[in-house]
């Protein structure tokens, strides 16, 4: 009886960890491709504004680092909370 309960517990934990890991990996992948594309478009804007010389052209590019930083912070926070839910006693 105990053995069956233990097996069921191990099975459910393995399932939970597998699904959780897959979700985290997909999430990290989405984060990477979004930041990559964001930086890609920004680099094109830099080139575009480089062609069109002007004194205040940097105004269009402000907020890039802040946005990526905020995105990273949110990802880290959500991941930390979920890991603490899993592991903390």
């Amino acid at each position, binding site marked *: 009886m105990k053995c069956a309960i233990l097996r069921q517990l191990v099975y459910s934990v393995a399932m939970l960890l597998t699904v959780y890991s897959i979700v985290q990996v997909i999430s990290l992948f989405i984060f990477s491709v979004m930041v990559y594309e*964001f930086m890609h478009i*920004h680099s094109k*804007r*830099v*080139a575009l504004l480089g062609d069109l010389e002007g004194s205040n*052209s940097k*105004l*269009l590019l402000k907020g890039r680092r802040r946005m990526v930083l905020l995105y990273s912070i949110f990802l880290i926070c959500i991941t930390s909370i979920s890991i603490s*839910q*899993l592991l903390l006693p």
Partner: protein
Amino acid sequence: MNDLNTLPWHKEPPLAVSTLVGERVVDTFNTHWVKYMPIMSVFVLIISVAMLLTISSGTNVLRTNQLMPKVVFLVGNTSALLVMHWFFHRAMSQSLEGIIITNRRFIYLEAHLWAKEEMHEISLNQIKAVESQKRGLTENIFRFGHLSFDTGGSDMSTRTFFRIPHPDRKAKIITDLLRTANYG
């Protein structure tokens, strides 16, 4: 800006733009920050519910023998991640909206990550009239509105751009440019 020069994709040609002779940038700006408000409201609402679900599953999810806390935890965590990615996709796309006014043309840049990247350009010599509008309480309090260009011709010739900060000032800049260049 220098750090971007080292990135591998920097060598790619920029958006289809060819610099005109004697062209210089007069003004560059992003559309008004109020564009983030609708998605921010949805984000705050859904992520609160999702995080509540995650936390309500209780600590030590791994050691419990019940199925329900595990399901609640997974649903909460996945929803939180999904809504976060959705929000930042929209926010980053909207942050890429930008406007460049040069002494020759008006350029509106628009992008949607992995979906579209557009550049609308109106030459100043096509513009017959500029119109700025601030309608309603929100637009007047936060000082943003529409900017419309009449390019002459048919009824479809009016181009309107939304969420422009201080549209009256921008209209004045363009009108001055038209007057200076003797286009109008």
